[in-house]
Structures are given as structure tokens and as C-alpha cells.
């Protein structure tokens, strides 16, 4: 095959090129020609096509995402903001924490195990690239109905992939979500979060500066896996009769990644590199163009130097390959020997593939011929930007009008018992340990709290016991009913979950999973959700540090429920003071903090019992969330409460049942209002705490001080979950609840 050189491109301006097959639109292809003053070479076309894909360029979301910066709350905590591989937050004592969540939805549908595994691999390298030691991962997951046939294929593979890769890396998996809904049947969501820790002075950036500095590619060899994965998989909708896309999914090797992590950390410790970038989506195209674009000059790359697993790869394929476990570093020539020594110690392949220069161009040669000559910013940062049309769907008002208020509610004691059991055993609320027991939550020895607690928490310093807590949340039914409020509710819940462990919420990351941006209805959902989230972050004083947008999550014309997963990171001075939700003793007083209203639209009860979705979601109250958090943090710091649990999906009934199961004892609730509202409302800004009778008055005073309504609702003890209300009295053995709660997932997936 002849090489398509830049000279040939100039000489043959009218040659036909497969820009459409590579996912570019006609006007985008025309723009490339304007930038270059000629047609692109096939290698340049490959680079532009992957870097201008939706996944890499954020071309449909950029105009909206600006709000996260424009509305950012004033804070000294943010050390590195959006735009880098991951944001970095000051957590005190000279420590910085970086965290980010990313999607790997489409690859995980095509090939569940490898898709999910490489999702972990990619986010871990993003965190590593900031100079941090990765210390924990989490996985927010969404599947189709638990009993659907394809969920039987997808879920076990994804869970095994997350475990297989994450466990082998030696990173504790401390939380996440597992949610089932019909809308995800043909498009599951596999989001992966990683958190890393470093000292302030160790923060690294992806930049190639200093003429004469070397570009070193290290890690795994480059193979044919994942070629076109970015543009083909992440930016196109699944079609029932489309061609098989399996070859585009990357294959992961966690051992190589583990060794690469240790190798990088040793390199970082010696301070011998100028910049670093991981190779993820768009591979070498992305790493070289981003490094050069962030630097102060140009870069020349000799592509023949790239170590290959498959010698027959074309230069275009090498540029696009998404082979995993690779990194690219920029270093001064004097540090090369030491760099190579460390790589040799870890048996990591490393090779110089280029040099930084002052040309202002990214040039790439192959077999002595120039095949790329581009301004790097036009590839990496100046891609197309679309202001896509958006409009409220015609069906939205009817959806909002269809309230759950008129649905039949339980009235007799038997009906209440049945409702409790139905919800406790429903897939979304059932025990998830069939999944989470396949993840190592102990490795590194710093895990203070993990699933099923409200937030995962790890210690970051042995000597001080300082730690960080993270929760990810999103109730996509709420977002469907009202995307602006739904995104705020997702933030509210994650914020509350972090506070419910006693940690102070500090910063936000997100993974915005939506349908096709070319659908004005989806774009409306997206725009509303981003605006809602940005407004709420400003009010709560927690900046968005970065995140990820995943579009085209739909099957045919039907989009998933809009799912803006929000991750909140908090800090706690001593992890030993953290709160958990198991009831540790009999005779504790149960107190509900916050106000309970009759809010059932989009609730778990409406979903499970009536398969109903309509109305308006619970009304967010950000100021109340903030005050509730103050009460929980103070109470934890002062050791005032024995257990705490946030109230969200499934309301008070679900929360107290979980506290009973975790503590292996019963509880009696004495409700003053109607039992149904008390048990299953999903009003915001609420938590239930358990305190000793001696601490009760103090806690009530603390709540009053912060203007948080507080009501004593019961006591712990006995072997049953008992409810006494004016309109009904019933009781269920804790053993029965446990049986129902734990049987659901094994019955569906254990075979």
C-alpha cells in the first residue's frame, strides 16, 4: 500500500476519502481542508475523525458545560479545574485529591467484560496522569430490568470485568450504584470513578514544553484493538440490524496496568518528567495532539518507533489504536537514562518516539515520509462546536400532569406488610452483595466505609487518619420528570450521602449520560440538567472539578432516561469518627431530621408497585441540605450519634429496614401522621439518626440550632420492624426482611 504523504495530499486534492465512514460530517471535512489548506492525508483524517468525535471533542455539550465554570462557587479548594485530565482539590494537610467519573457504556454493551474492565483502566490512568496514586474506585451502573434476558448476559459480564480488572490493580472498590430500569435494556450505563491522592507539589499536567525535550511512549505495545472505538462506538447509536462491532472494543491487561502504575509513581517520585498524558480514547492521536497543544511549541513524532503487537498495522491504525495500558511522557534528555532504568526495573517497555520543537506544528513521519503536518490545537482543542437546537418534548407537560397521587395505596396492615416486603425485595432496593462481594473492598488497608454504606470512605494518611468520602447518585426518573430539578436532586442526594458519613462535601464530578444530541428533546434534557446542576453547585458552594459527557445512549429512537450521575467528594479529619447506618444497640432513639411532605411522583413505590412514572419530582431544598449536612457533620465530629442513614429511594421504611438488617436488630417506629406518607415519601434533605437516650436532647438542640426540623420517630431493639401509626399497626420479623432483601439478586443471577 502506498503511503498517503502530505506532499501527495497536496498533489491530489480531489482524491476520495472515507470521511463519512469515519464519522465526520461534510462540513467538518470541509473545515479540515480549510485548516490545512489542502485535503488531509489519510493519517490526518484518522486523527481529526477521532479527536472531533463527540466523545473526545464535547462538540455538542461544550456550550452548555461552560456554565460549570461561569457559575463556579468561590473556593480555595480547587487546585486544578476543569479541562485537565481530572480536577484536583485541596483536602488539607498539604494533601490534594483528584477524582473523576467516566462512561464506558457502549463498549460494555458490545462486550460486557472487556468494556467494563477497560473503563476502570481508563479512569485509573486519568487519575495517575495528574501525578496521584489511585486509592479507590467506584462504579455507578444502570441495567435493563433485572429479570430481562439480556440483563442476564450483560450484568454478570460487567460485574466480572470490573472485579477482574479492579481487583488485579489492587484498588478497593468502595461504592457506586446498581439501578435497573427498562430504558437501559439496550444501552446499559457503565460509569467508573477513580480517586487519587498526592501532595500539592506533586501535581502534574499534560503539557509538552521545552524545545529539544523527548516524547517517550511507555507501557503496553500497540495492537489492533479498539481501532475506531471512539468514533464508531461512543458516538453512534446502536441499531438493531447494524454490523457486529466487537472488534472495536479494547482488551484490557490489568497486570500491565498495575505495573505501569507502580512504574509511574516511582518516576513521579524522582521528579524527572515535564508532562504526562495517558493514552485512552483516540490513542496516540489524542496524546500527542493534546500534549503539543498544551505546550508551547510543536512536536515531531517518528511513528515507526512505536512498538507494535501486530507488525501489519498501517500508520492510520497505529494513530487510532486504543490499545490499553499506555502512557506518554515528556522529559529532558538528561533524565532519559534514569527514566529508562525505572521502566526496566518494572519490565515496562519504553521508547522515544519524538521530540518537542518550536515549529508550532505536530508533524509525524512514517518510513521517512511526512504523513501528518497539522496545528495541534486544531486537532485537540479547536474542534467543531455545535449549538444544537433543543426544545421541550411535546409529551413533557402530559408527563408532569400524570401525578402518582391518585394511585392506590395500602390501607390494611396486611397491605402495608406486603408493600414493605415488595419494596425491600425489589431489584433496585434489594441487597447488592451478589455484585459488590465480587469486588475487593479491603486492599490497601485504608477502607473505612464501603457499600452498602451511604458513601465510600478511605483514609489518606495513616498518621492523622484524615480521609475522603465519595458518593455517586442519580435518580433518573426524577430527571425524566424534570431534568433541571432532577440534576439538582442527584447532587442533593450525593451531598447528603457524604454528609451522612460525617464528611464535609467539597467538590463535584459528573458523568452526564443522555440520548442523541441530534434529538432536540434530548438536548433540552441535557441543557436543563446542566443548568440545574450548575445552579445547585453554586448554591451549595461545591465546584464541579471535571466530568464526562456520554451521548447517543439510546436504542433506535428511544433514549435512556436522562442520567446525570453526580459524584460528591468530602473530607473528614479523622475517619474514626465516621458514621455508618447499622443500629449498634437496643434502646437507641430514632430521630428523623428534615421535613416530610407528601411527595410520591417518581418514587420507588410508584415505580415498583404501580410501574408508574409521572408528575413532578420532590422539590429540592438546597439550603435545607446544607443545614442538614451541618447537623450531621457536627454530630459525627462530637460523637453524638450511634448511626445515621440518608433518606432517599424507598423513604423512611427502606432506610430503617436497612439499619435493622445492618445492625441485626429490630426497631419500632411510632408515627404521628399517616403511615404511608411517613414511610414512603421521598422528600429531600432528610436523614434518620440513632442516638442514645442521653444524647437525644443534645441532638435535638443541635438540629434546632441549624433550623432543621427533628422528630423522634422510634427506638431500636427487638427482633422485628414494627410500625405504630394512627391509621395502621404492623410488624415484620427482621429475619423475614433479610430473607426477602438478600434473595432477589442471587435468584436472578446465581446460576
Amino acid at each position: 500500500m502506498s503511503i498517503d504523504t502530505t506532499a501527495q495530499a497536496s498533489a491530489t486534492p480531489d482524491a476520495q476519502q472515507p470521511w463519512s465512514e469515519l464519522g465526520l460530517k461534510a462540513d467538518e471535512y470541509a473545515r479540515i481542508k480549510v485548516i490545512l489548506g489542502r485535503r488531509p492525508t489519510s493519517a490526518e483524517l484518522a486523527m481529526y475523525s477521532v479527536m472531533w468525535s463527540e466523545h473526545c471533542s464535547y462538540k455538542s455539550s461544550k456550550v452548555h458545560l461552560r456554565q460549570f465554570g461561569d457559575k463556579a462557587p468561590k473556593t480555595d479548594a480547587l487546585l486544578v479545574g476543569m479541562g485537565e485530565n481530572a480536577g484536583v482539590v485541596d483536602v488539607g494537610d498539604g494533601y490534594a485529591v483528584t477524582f473523576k467519573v467516566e462512561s464506558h457504556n457502549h463498549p460494555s454493551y458490545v462486550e460486557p467484560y472487556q468494556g467494563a474492565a477497560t473503563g476502570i483502566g481508563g479512569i485509573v490512568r486519568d487519575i495517575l496522569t495528574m501525578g496521584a496514586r489511585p486509592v479507590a474506585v467506584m462504579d455507578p451502573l444502570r441495567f435493563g430490568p433485572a429479570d430481562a434476558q439480556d440483563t442476564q448476559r450483560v450484568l454478570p459480564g460487567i460485574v466480572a470485568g470490573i472485579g477482574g480488572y479492579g481487583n488485579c490493580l489492587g484498588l478497593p472498590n468502595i461504592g457506586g450504584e446498581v439501578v435497573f430500569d427498562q430504558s437501559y435494556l439496550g444501552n446499559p450505563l457503565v460509569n467508573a470513578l477513580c480517586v487519587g491522592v498526592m501532595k500539592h507539589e506533586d501535581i502534574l499536567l499534560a503539557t509538552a514544553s521545552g524545545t529539544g525535550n523527548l516524547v517517550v511512549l511507555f507501557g503496553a505495545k500497540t495492537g489492533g484493538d479498539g481501532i475506531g472505538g471512539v468514533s464508531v462506538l461512543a458516538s453512534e447509536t446502536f441499531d438493531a440490524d447494524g454490523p457486529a462491532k466487537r472488534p472495536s472494543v479494547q482488551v484490557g491487561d490489568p497486570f500491565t496496568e498495575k505495573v505501569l502504575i507502580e512504574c509511574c509513581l516511582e518516576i513521579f517520585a524522582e521528579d524527572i518528567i515535564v508532562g504526562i498524558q495517558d493514552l485512552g480514547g483516540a490513542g496516540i492521536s489524542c496524546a500527542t495532539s493534546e500534549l503539543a497543544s498544551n505546550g508551547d511549541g510543536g512536536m515531531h513524532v517518528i511513528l515507526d518507533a512505536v512498538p507494535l503487537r501486530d507488525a501489519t498495522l498501517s500508520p492510520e491504525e497505529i494513530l487510532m489504536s486504543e490499545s490499553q495500558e499506555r502512557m506518554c511522557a515528556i522529559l529532558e534528555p538528561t533524565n532519559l537514562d534514569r527514566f529508562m532504568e525505572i521502566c526496566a526495573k518494572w519490565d515496562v517497555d519504553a521508547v522515544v518516539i519524538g521530540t518537542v520543537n518550536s515549529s508550532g506544528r505536530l508533524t509525524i513521519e512514517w518510513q521517512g515520509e511526512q504523513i501528518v503536518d497539522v496545528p495541534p490545537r486544531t486537532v485537540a482543542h479547536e474542534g467543531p462546536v455545535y449549538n444544537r437546537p433543543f426544545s421541550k418534548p411535546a409529551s413533557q407537560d402530559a408527563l408532569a400532569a400524570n401525578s402518582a397521587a391518585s394511585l392506590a395505596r395500602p390501607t390494611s396492615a396486611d397491605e402495608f406488610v406486603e408493600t414493605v416486603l415488595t419494596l425491600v425485595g425489589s431489584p433496585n432496593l434489594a441487597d447488592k452483595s451478589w455484585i459488590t462481594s465480587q469486588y475487593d473492598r479491603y486492599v490497601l488497608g485504608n477502607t473505612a466505609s464501603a457499600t452498602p454504606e451511604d458513601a465510600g470512605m478511605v483514609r489518606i494518611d495513616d498518621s492523622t487518619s484524615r480521609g475522603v468520602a465519595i458518593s455517586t447518585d442519580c435518580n433518573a426518573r426524577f430527571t425524566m420528570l424534570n431534568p433541571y430539578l432532577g440534576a439538582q436532586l442527584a447532587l442533593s442526594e450525593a451531598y447528603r450521602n457524604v454528609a451522612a458519613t460525617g464528611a464535609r462535601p467539597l467538590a463535584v464530578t459528573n458523568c452526564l449520560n443522555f440520548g442523541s444530541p441530534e434529538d432536540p428533546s434530548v438536548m433540552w434534557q441535557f441543557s436543563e440538567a446542566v443548568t440545574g446542576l450548575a445552579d445547585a453547585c453554586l448554591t451549595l458552594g461545591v465546584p464541579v472539578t471535571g466530568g464526562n459527557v456520554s451521548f447517543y445512549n439510546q436504542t433506535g429512537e428511544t433514549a435512556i432516561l436522562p442520567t446525570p450521575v453526580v459524584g460528591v467528594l468530602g473530607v473528614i479529619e479523622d475517619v474514626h469518627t465516621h458514621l455508618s447506618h447499622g443500629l449498634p444497640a437496643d434502646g437507641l432513639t430514632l430521630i428523623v431530621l428534615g421535613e416530610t411532605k407528601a411527595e410520591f411522583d417518581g418514587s420507588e413505590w410508584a415505580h415498583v408497585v404501580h410501574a408508574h412514572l409521572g408528575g413532578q419530582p420532590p422539590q429540592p431544598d438546597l439550603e435545607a441540605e446544607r443545614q442538614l449536612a451541618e447537623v450531621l457533620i457536627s454530630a459525627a465530629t462530637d460523637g453524638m450519634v450511634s448511626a445515621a442513614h440518608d433518606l432517599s429511594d424507598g423513604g423512611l421504611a427502606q432506610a430503617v429496614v436497612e439499619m435493622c438488617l445492618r445492625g441485626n436488630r429490630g426497631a419500632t417506629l411510632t408515627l404521628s401522621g399517616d403511615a404511608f406518607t411517613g414511610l414512603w415519601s421521598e422528600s429531600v434533605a432528610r436523614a434518620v439518626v440513632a442516638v442514645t437516650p442521653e444524647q437525644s436532647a443534645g441532638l435535638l438542640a443541635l438540629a434546632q440550632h441549624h433550623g432543621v426540623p427533628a422528630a423522634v420517630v422510634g427506638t431500636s431493639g427487638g427482633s422485628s420492624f414494627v410500625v405504630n401509626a394512627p391509621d395502621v399497626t404492623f410488624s415484620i420479623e427482621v429475619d423475614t426482611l433479610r430473607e426477602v432483601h438478600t434473595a432477589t439478586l442471587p435468584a436472578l443471577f446465581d446460576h
Partner: protein
Amino acid sequence: MSPRVGVVTFPGSLDDRDAQRAIRLAGAEPVALWHGTTDLSKVDAVVLPGGFSYGDYLRAGAIARFAPIMASIIDAANDGMPVFGICNGFQVLCESHLLPGALTRNDHLHFICRDQKLRIENTTSAFTSGFNTNQEIVIPLKNGEGSYIADERTLDELEATGRIIARYIDGNPNGSRRDIAGITNEAGNVVGLMPHPEHAVEAGFGPSLDGLTFFTSVLSRLVNA
């Protein structure tokens, strides 16, 4: 001077720093040992930690067994040095034939991480002498290939000679023959255990403090030696 306990790091070892922490909390001095070394002159005992050495793509522990340091460890173990293999370390000890039998894929085919109840049945080995006979403990278990297997004659012999140091109780998590969680060699200085005692040594970071006794046991043996 407190005894020094080496912790080997193979490429892919994961719980090496955790084992070092446990050794420190037990009162000994942890020493990091790189897999490429053959020098054990600076340590009084060795821990082979958990993890996935070399990715464990062939058979767990099968490649680590050929690391340079293993030749030294095999010689030292035969001379009586206390050697403790945890999880992947247990697999390496079996592959090295310092312990009989093998660890195979869990019978349910999943990786499993849970707090596991054990009964300590041998209180004379280098790493279990601090326990009471039949003491019940809870420590984390986390593995994909933890099902202990050996021929019937070996199993009978292990039982008859008191070389089963711990058994799973309240439910066998992986199909291990005769509920075996850990064994020792005839001399009692080489011990393999599938669950992870190094993750039960600090309040707030594990289900109990039961794991610490494995490390204090070897410490008292070294001090009294």
C-alpha cells in the same frame, strides 16, 4: 532490636504494603524485598503477600514460583525460617512445593470478598501459636482461586498430623476440600492461609483485630528463639 520480617513484592503483588503495616503494628520491623533479589540475610522471617503476581494469567503463583527470590526462600524455609503465604502467597507456596496441594478456581466461579469466620485448629505453627485451640476468628477473605484441593491421602495426613491450621466455619466460601482455609508444613515454620489477616489489624479498617495474632505469633517465636 526488633525482629525483621521481609515482605516480598512480585510484579502484581497488591497487599504488600498492607502486610508491612501489619508487621509494624505487631511490633516487628517490615523489610521490603524485591522479587529479583536472592539475599535474605537481613530478615528473620518472610511474608509472601496477596495479589496477582505476574497477573496470574497462567495458574495463580505458577510464575512467581520461579522468581529469583523464591530459590532463597525455599532454602531458608527448609532451614527453618518462618514463611507465611497469604492468599497469592499461599498459592506460590503450593506451586513451590513448600506446602502440599493446590488452590483452584472457586467452585461458584466468582471472585468473592467477604468477612469470613474461621476456626484455628493448630496453635503450634510459627504463625498461629498465639491463638487458643479452636478459637473462632473473623478476617476478610478475597480471592478468585481459593478452593484448596489435594488427594485424599494428603488430606487425611494433614488432618492426622494437625497440619490444618484453620478451617472455614458457618459456610465454605469456595469449595475448599474439608473446609481448609490454611495449612502448615511438617516442621510448622511454613504456613499458607487463604484469607487475609493483614486486613484485620486496625480498629475501623476491618471486621476485627483477629489478624494481628498471626503476626505477633511469629514475633514472639523470633524473640524467644
